[in-house]
């Protein structure tokens, strides 16, 4: 028992040293910081529907928000959300009646980003998404919500620092929402503030 305690103490000391050795003196240059990014842009739904579509609109405006912890290393970690309209399907039930079906998704992803070369980053996200389906027409509106548990995102970004606190850039993102097998990509202009 005593030996286990000794080993555990040594392991704890080792990891503590490793963690603290990664942090540099933050008095002169604060490398370990947080950023908040907003990314409005254009989204495109990749239509893989087998049935039930007469007319579909696949391009919309969307927006993302990302909060990142950026230590002085290549990897950053954070949370990302957003609001994307995937499609609007318009189907004619008969000569007088048409139905509009809209699908909107709000992802909530754990996001990891890595600097590849200066200003260029690759990222990946994994997490939940709330998918809202709205069918309207023939005098009624039906809204349903689906929670999707298996969703991912891949992204590539170029970030240009304007000042010590502000960055701008562009980002390409590809999403997959597992519950309903929806794919979309988005090209966004990003603006980040260093907190």
């Amino acid at each position, binding site marked *: 028992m005593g030996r286990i305690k000794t080993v555990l103490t040594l392991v704890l000391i080792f990891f503590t040293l490793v963690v603290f050795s990664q942090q540099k003196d933050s008095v002169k240059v604060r490398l370990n910081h947080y950023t908040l990014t907003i990314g409005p842009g254009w989204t495109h739904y990749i239509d893989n529907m087998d*049935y039930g*579509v007469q007319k579909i609109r696949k391009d919309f405006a969307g927006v993302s928000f990302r909060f990142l912890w950026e230590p002085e290393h290549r990897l950053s970690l954070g949370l990302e959300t957003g609001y994307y309209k995937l499609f609007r399907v318009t189907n004619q*039930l008969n000569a007088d009646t048409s139905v509009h*079906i809209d699908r909107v998704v709000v992802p909530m992803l754990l996001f990891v980003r890595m600097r590849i070369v200066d200003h260029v980053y690759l990222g990946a996200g994994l997490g939940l998404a709330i*998918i809202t389906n709205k069918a309207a027409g023939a005098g*009624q509106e039906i809204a349903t919500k689906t929670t999707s548990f298996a969703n991912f995102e891949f992204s590539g970004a170029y970030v240009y620092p304007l000042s010590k606190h502000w960055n701008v850039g562009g980002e390409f993102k590809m999403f997959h929402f597992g519950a309903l*097998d929806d794919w979309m990509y988005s090209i966004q202009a990003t603006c980040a503030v260093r907190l």
Partner: protein
Amino acid sequence: MKTRILHMAGLMLLFYGCNKDNVVPVPATGPVSVMTETYPLPPASKLLLEGVYRVTSGSDKFGDLMVVKWNRTGVLFANNNGKHFIMEAGHLDSVVFIQGYWRDGYSDATGACTMIVGRSEGGTSLVTGNGAQQIIIRGAYAKESGLPDQTLTMEYLRPFSDKVKNSNFYILGHRAGGRNSDRLPVSENSLAMIKYTERLGTTGIEVDPRLSSDKIPFIYHDPDINIRLTQKGPLAGDVSAYTWRQLSSFVRLIHGEKIPSLQEVLNYVVDSTSLRFVYLDMKTAEAVPIIIPMQLKALQRAKDNHRKDSLLIVMGIPSTEVLNAVLAYPGYQNVPTLCELTVDDVRQLNSKVWAPRWTLGTQNDLVQQMQNEGRLAVCWTIDSPGWIETYLNDGLFNGLLTNYPYVVAYYHYIQE
């Protein structure tokens, strides 16, 4: 850089490799089928062909014994490990041709199969219906894709026992006869499945009624529209939130069929099948007062079609909510019901059928009590060959609900 690209390509392949196909393809027996040249066998010949066969060649794959049983559209060969043959048969002169495919119900293995009963090996007897000759079914099966090249020979061993012939045992197919996860060529809870399931050996079905927002009962298992049950389309979420018109216009089941209304299902069963049992596994209590009149009307339709004694349509009661809804219906004691709850609930409802979960055991004393009271007892949902054998040999149930009806068929028809 090249290595990175190869790694990326490998990851993509791995990712897409996880997407399963929805169906095990039905093997073709060749460019030209001999069956188009044959004539249908008369009913007496079909009865002669039925029975237990010894597998004399091919037993390493299909076991030592095979049950051969006719259904409404063809003939089923079933063995004890889930491998089964879905075949058609006809005769040309005195030779009986049997053609179709085999499938392993517990895996994706499948292959074409072509067999004959020669003139001197039972063909003449079968075609004339006199039954004097020993029947030997010879032919070949394909191990995978391609033409049949593996020998399969089966020799008639005995007819079905009197116990089997005199029993009114129900082989009930789950979700209208089979699940999507078993990768059948038709969708679960569809009219196509009801048409297909008799080929798997079922004599009855369980279906899952729900209610659309405009109060039309339809058949669908899950509470939501999802890509497990449906082709990908624009509707999603709670299936009962949509009107019947929206569901029938914008949703297709995984193999392209429409979601059937309960009315369509009941009419189809009564008019176009030989099924003897329909188990309406109620998914919502709200649907009870709407479905009971439809159920009674379908039973009347069966009576008008001279099927009254051979078709039982029961409302399944899986929960106290549904139980209370049935108890609130005027004259509920005259509504044919199947109660999954306690025997006291069965008595209170005057249910025709008691249906306990299979994990509760054979419960022979309670089953016997129910049968002594003039009721039936069926058990749900039992899939493992070992348990199916045990329940058929040691239990007293009048039927089993299963996803593997051909396994139940084997263990039922082979009983001595």
